[in-house]
């Protein structure tokens, strides 16, 4: 199944809605993958403003 990206929080997800944002405003075309595993200690997470570990896209269309 094709993964989509929430336009609000940039989470990569399967299905039709983002459970975090409660929106179905999803992008089918996206690029760049970031996986945050340790949001507390990751500098990348800090730069992106991410505080919950998950998969994110860097860009959507």
């Amino acid at each position, binding site marked *: 199944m094709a993964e989509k990206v929430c336009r609000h929080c940039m989470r990569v997800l399967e299905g039709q809605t983002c459970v975090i944002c409660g929106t179905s405003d999803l992008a089918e075309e996206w690029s760049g993958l970031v996986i945050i595993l340790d949001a507390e200690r990751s500098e990348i*997470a800090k730069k992106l403003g991410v505080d919950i570990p998950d998969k994110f896209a860097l860009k959507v269309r």
Partner: protein
Amino acid sequence: MSEDSQIFVIKTTANQERSVATALARVSKKEKLDIRAILAPDELKGYVLVEAPKSGIVELAIQTIPHARALVKGSSSIAEIEHFLKPKPTVTGIKEGAIIEVTSGPFKGEKARVKRVDEGHEEITVELFDAVVPIPITIRGDTVRILKKDNE
């Protein structure tokens, strides 16, 4: 205090960057390794970036991952890879007046002059050279190749 993060680079098989990133996340969780983040920017073909405090952790993690070919020697700072976190719009570098060639879609192979650049929508409006009547058409910024930057 936890140890400082560094960025390590893994060489992967081409087009397997995302599968390596996903597999690495799975191994890291299962083995409870101190891997903090994994980055697979589209601009970086054949490589995946890993945020961890020590190279040994990454070296260990990639042993069982298919398509993860090797750990590149040395490490980078976060500052050195920060630009990957803000990908540029595909129209960046395309200016009004530039001459482009359309690389896909119904106008593939046509040459045109750029009339307008829309950064927000990543689209450009062009006028085809071969059209009998010059009608502006709007196309995606990633479906063109720049032939001449402007009409100098």
